[in-house]
């Protein structure tokens, strides 16, 4: 099959009267740099990256935003986001963000962190940034596993779940129970907004986007720390197809980590 065939094949249904600028309703944001994402097929990281960039573009705050990437699969987040970014040491994103926000209080700062990064090695930094009520957004990608290092147990791994370091399933009597860090930090007075969303369906993607937007608004109003926990998949390390992985989110993750607001600012309760 040669290249000509291919193009023809893919475009035979294209409606030339619809695909014009006038009728454009959705395109990816300009701030999402147009190169291949290194993520595995179907990985939720890409969706959340895009949503962040959509919100930042739509709110027109590119020149105000500074992002902090973690160590984890999303370590390269800065390769895709056309904004100023810093790459933090594993677990220290909220400390780095504290450093940034304290010297640039008028800017909008967010961290983007995985469950290993935020809830294992970075526990102290997470708790204390939240407790100080650092006025930034923490985007917390909970995929119940260490993605980047190939699938070890995370603090959020479900009981019984098989990972490379729990080859016989997570035994809570040895490794403890999954850590619901969102519920924990929600109790800290400095924290203004904690919500749990997912990106495994279009509706949930929409809700996640709304949460991100809200969080930036709260930050503009100096309300304190916002944390958005996004349940995400890791098809590669869960050893599933992307579709199976989304089913797993629906059937296993959400029952354990229920979606919805965990804390909202007082006046909105």
């Amino acid at each position: 099959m040669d290249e000509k065939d291919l193009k023809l094949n893919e475009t035979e249904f294209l409606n030339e009267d619809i695909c014009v600028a006038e009728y454009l309703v959705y395109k990816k944001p300009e701030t999402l740099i147009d190169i291949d994402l290194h993520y595995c097929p179907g990985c939720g990281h890409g969706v959340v990256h895009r949503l962040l960039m959509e919100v930042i573009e739509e709110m027109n705050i590119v020149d105000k935003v500074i992002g902090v990437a973690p160590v984890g699969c999303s370590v390269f987040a800065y390769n895709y986001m056309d904004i100023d970014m810093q790459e933090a040491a594993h677990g220290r994103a909220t400390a780095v963000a504290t450093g940034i926000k304290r010297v640039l209080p008028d800017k909008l700062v967010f961290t983007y962190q995985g469950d290993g990064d935020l809830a294992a090695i970075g526990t102290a930094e997470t708790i204390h940034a939240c407790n100080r009520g650092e006025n930034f957004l923490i985007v917390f990608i909970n995929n119940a596993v260490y993605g980047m290092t190939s699938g070890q147990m995370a603090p959020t791994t479900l009981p019984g779940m098989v990972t490379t370091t729990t080859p016989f399933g997570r035994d809570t009597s040895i490794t403890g129970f999954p850590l619901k860090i969102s519920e924990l930090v929600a109790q800290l007075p400095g924290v203004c907004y904690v919500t749990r969303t997912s990106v495994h369906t279009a509706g949930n993607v929409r809700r996640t986007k709304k949460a991100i937007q809200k969080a930036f608004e709260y930050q503009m109003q100096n309300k304190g720390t916002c944390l958005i926990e996004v349940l995400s998949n890791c098809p590669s390390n869960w050893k599933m197809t992307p579709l199976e992985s989304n089913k797993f989110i629906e059937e296993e993750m959400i029952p354990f980590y229920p979606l919805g607001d965990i804390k909202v600012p007082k006046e909105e309760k």
Partner: protein
Amino acid sequence: MKHESVFSGFGGQGVLTAGMILCYAGLNEGKEVCWMPSYGPEMRGGTANCIAIVSDEKISSPIISKFDSVVAFNQPSVDKFESMVKPGGNLFYESTNVISPPTRTDIDIFPIPAANEANKLNNLKVLNLIMLGAFNGVTNLVDDESIVFGLKQVLPERYHNLIPLNKEAYLIGKRLVEDILSKVG
């Protein structure tokens, strides 16, 4: 005797396993072996490769820049490794997936339509064994039984029922190069 080879392709094509089977086969024959994978996040949907060395003597450097054989499972691998074949060495490539084939004239080049053959077996996963068969068909580095030994080591117990299929794929690969060689020779 020392044979230094590299197996390279997309993640998921089984290139690391192919090299590993070769090393186990060498081990089975009492040879010195060394297998060295590329590792890390480039694995995320990217490319993977491994060096496999089989030798009668102790192996010094596991790091090499010139290979007796290159086994390329895709276009990027051909592009990357063609120049690293020693003069007189072999380059095997999966010909269904490769649009611009290698061009060197000082090495032996073997286009292997492994994907087609694997399709015929209704199992794309055995593509790597076809390539390995081609490789060993030319180099005769190890015995066929040693390859089967290697398969047993590499496949988890619960997949041992797939050994015959894999062996078949291996033999197809061997046959493919025999055909080529017979045409040439």
